[in-house]
């Protein structure tokens, strides 16, 4: 394949060094920016806001679980429809449970992974001046914002926010008469529908950019694993979101137009919603974790000063997970009334998906083996990720074994598992990624001591919060109970709910330390040079922060991204752009593999 003519156009004009910029207006720089780095920062700000909101809801949920019926400190500011006198109402509790999951999954973790790291890293790590479609990129962000505010606003409409769980199982979600929530549920549906367009716009952009805009010499197997992970994730987004969108429309028309897709009274089928939702939902789980795999590979190789162990196996494992992720959705439905014989099939595929996850863990261990490990904050978070992901992966085996799942399905065992994967997993990777690439966003480093304290405090309190939940689940503590002490056998183990709640408050406190560090370092942090971590991939050849257009000169790539401690170099790193010295080798292809950008 060869480059087309338009390729040259973007090369001539796109790169910073070859282009004279006008000073863009405030509005175009900070609000309606088409610069992928600014859009990444916008997504970061948005998702941190929703992370804070989701965390606040979690803290309130924990209050209610530990001290049911007691007025919540500060709860007096909530309206009487939510918490009269600070005492949380059951309908508000259900809304909080629903919105905690919704905010965290759709408006915090997903945009952090895809919106922030996808936007920041893809052009920088493939040596491109920007995304293939910068305006589409801007649109992607400006669709996510109204979607988020619509979701948030639903708390204040009549009937309150959606209260049918983040999974919105029909018929509970399909008709307001079951919950008293009409408009709130509809806003939930419309908001996610709009957010879906944002995700699709992003995915189209990422896929196009990775395929078409890689720098000269940057072959597929010289891509950083972050790019691989984000590329595969984008394909999942592109294929999964339309399924969700279809299901959302059906549920919305059940709510508003009198259709009965999911209402048995009109001949509908409640399980159809679950099939559609989880057919989207399980790939969604991997959308939330695959980018984390990429980030963690990156920071562990950098910390260990060693090439990623089994690079090709890591790529294949990502692809294998992405494929298998489509045929495991039924494990969410072992108890649903789905034909139990179908459960056998899903049990088998679900067990098998543990294999590529195991491969990844072993290769991370292999990367640390015989390394020269620098305990910088990104590595700490990355290692934290690995140790917690092991727990989340292993607890998944219990649920995959359908007979054992009988006992633990819909209990706190599941809550423990999802938080080990999404908090211990994804969020630790996000902490790793933000501390690692902070210089590429803000030109400065985060305070490393504060990051280390944050890591230690979070790792400890995190485990105090979520590890005991496994035990609560085994005891039979159901999810989404407003007041667990209604059950005598759960009232006996209420101590653990109190213990978890206090631990959760401590966990939240450590997050404020991180937020302080984040804001302080943005303005006052130590200035970073282009390559503070002595890393190899292309973003570290660009200034910190990179200017509009990213690179002074068009980068040319000579090797893979993980050539740490190579004998070819005196140093323990070797930039991808460093021309081979004395060592003879074939000259790289000066043109990218393929290019199809429209002028």
């Amino acid at each position, binding site marked *: 394949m060869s480059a087309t003519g338009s390729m040259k156009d973007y090369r001539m004009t796109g790169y910073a060094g070859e282009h004279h910029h006008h000073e863009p207006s405030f509005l175009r720089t900070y609000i309606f920016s088409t610069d992928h780095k600014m859009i990444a920062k916008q997504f970061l700000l948005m998702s941190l806001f929703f992370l804070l909101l989701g965390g606040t809801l979690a803290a309130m949920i924990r209050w209610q679980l530990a001290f049911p019926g007691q007025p919540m400190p500060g709860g007096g500011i909530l309206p009487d429809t939510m918490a009269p006198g600070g005492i949380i109402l059951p309908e508000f509790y*259900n809304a909080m449970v629903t919105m905690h999951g919704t905010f965290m999954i759709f408006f915090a973790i997903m945009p952090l992974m895809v919106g922030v790291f996808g936007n920041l890293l893809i052009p920088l790590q493939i040596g491109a001046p920007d995304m293939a479609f910068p305006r589409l990129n801007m649109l992607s962000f400006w669709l996510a914002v109204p979607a988020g505010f619509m979701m948030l606003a639903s708390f204040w409409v009549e009937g309150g926010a959606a*209260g049918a769980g983040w999974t919105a199982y029909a018929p509970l979600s399909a008709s307001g*008469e079951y919950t008293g929530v009409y408009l709130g549920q509809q806003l939930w549906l419309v908001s996610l529908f709009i957010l879906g367009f944002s995700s699709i716009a992003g995915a189209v952009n990422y896929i196009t950019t990775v395929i078409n805009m890689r720098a000269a010499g940057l072959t597929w197997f010289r891509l950083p694993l972050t790019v691989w992970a984000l590329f595969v994730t984008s394909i999942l987004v592109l294929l999964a979101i339309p399924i969700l969108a279809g299901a959302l429309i059906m549920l919305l028309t059940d709510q508003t137009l009198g259709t009965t897709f999911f209402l048995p009274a009109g001949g509908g089928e409640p399980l159809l919603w679950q099939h559609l939702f989880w057919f989207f939902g399980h790939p969604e789980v991997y959308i939330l974790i695959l980018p984390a795999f990429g980030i963690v590979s990156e920071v562990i190789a950098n910390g260990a000063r060693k090439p990623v162990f089994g690079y090709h196996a890591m790529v294949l494992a990502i692809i294998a997970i992405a494929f298998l992720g489509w045929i495991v959705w039924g494990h969410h439905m072992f108890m649903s009334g789905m034909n*139990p014989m179908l459960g056998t099939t899903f049990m088998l595929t679900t067990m098998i998906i543990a294999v590529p996850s195991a491969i990844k863990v072993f290769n991370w261990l292999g990367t640390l083996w015989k390394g020269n490990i620098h305990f910088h904050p990104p590595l700490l978070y990355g*290692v934290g990720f690995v140790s917690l992901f092991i727990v989340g992966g292993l607890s998944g085996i219990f649920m995959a074994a359908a007979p054992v799942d009988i006992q633990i399905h819909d209990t706190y065992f599941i809550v423990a598992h999802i938080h080990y994967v999404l908090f211990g997993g994804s969020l630790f990777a996000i902490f790793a990624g933000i501390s690692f690439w902070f210089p590429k966003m803000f030109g400065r480093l985060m305070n490393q001591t504060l990051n280390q304290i944050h890591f230690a405090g979070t790792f400890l309190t995190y485990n105090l919060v979520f590890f005991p939940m496994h035990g609560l689940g085994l005891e039979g503590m159901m999810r989404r109970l407003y007041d667990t002490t209604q059950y005598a056998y759960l009232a006996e183990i209420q101590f653990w709910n109190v213990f978890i709640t206090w631990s959760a408050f401590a966990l939240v406190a450590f997050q404020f330390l991180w937020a302080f560090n984040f804001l302080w370092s943005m303005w006052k942090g130590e200035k970073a040079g282009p390559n503070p971590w002595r890393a190899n991939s292309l973003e570290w050849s660009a200034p910190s922060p990179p200017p509009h257009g990213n690179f002074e000169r068009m980068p040319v790539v000579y090797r893979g991204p993980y050539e740490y401690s190579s004998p070819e170099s005196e140093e323990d790193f070797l930039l991808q752009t460093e021309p081979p010295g004395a060592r003879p080798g074939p000259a790289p292809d000066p043109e990218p593999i393929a290019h199809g950008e429209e002028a």
Partner: protein
Amino acid sequence: MNWLLDPSFSTFGPDIDRLYYIILVITGLVFVITEGALIWFLIRYRRKEGRKAAYVHGSVKAEVIWTTVPFVIVLALALMSKGLWDQIKDPAHFPDNPYEVLVTARQFEWITTYAGADGEFGTDDDFTLTNRVQVPVNRPVLVHLEAEDVIHSFFVPDFRVKQDAVPGMRMPVWFEVTEPGEYTLGCAELCGIGHYRMRGTIQVLPQAEFEAWEAEQIALRSGTGQENLAARSPGEDDHGSGADEAGRDGR
């Protein structure tokens, strides 16, 4: 509270618990090995001045081993799980001659319907209990599980029984209890604002006692028709008339 399960009181409970413990041992070993290796590597290979990390890109042999071994283990677990799953869930393996009851879930209560003298559900001589399922010990019980409004989930932790009750469907759930007593029935699927208080009791009686109670209820139905303390009149609470009548009470 720990990683041990509370004792189970159904015939298949110990089988589920055994599978659980097998998985616990295997995952426990994997946990210790992987976390141990992680900690060991972090200590052993911590940064030292003047040392360079090994320039190693991987090992095909290692990849083959750590792909094959987990594959064999999870495949074995899947096959073991399949055997037990079929034994519990496959209708072809359901026990013969079970005692049958109809349990209807609705916001936010469990209605148990007994067939009465004629052995048919949905007839005039049915009798019902609210938030109480009374069954005999040491005899397979087949629950026909229905829901009237939204999805609920019939969860008896002590029996290792859980099954969602789906409006529009009638799900068969069986269990055989090994000890008389009172056990907690809970709702495990979010079903609305009263989800947290949708609980009931499974009262397991010795065979003779259960038969006496059932006979008494049948006698009451066929006799004066008066209400008694345990059972309610089907007239005011007629839920046993089949799957396609899933009502929408709006409560």
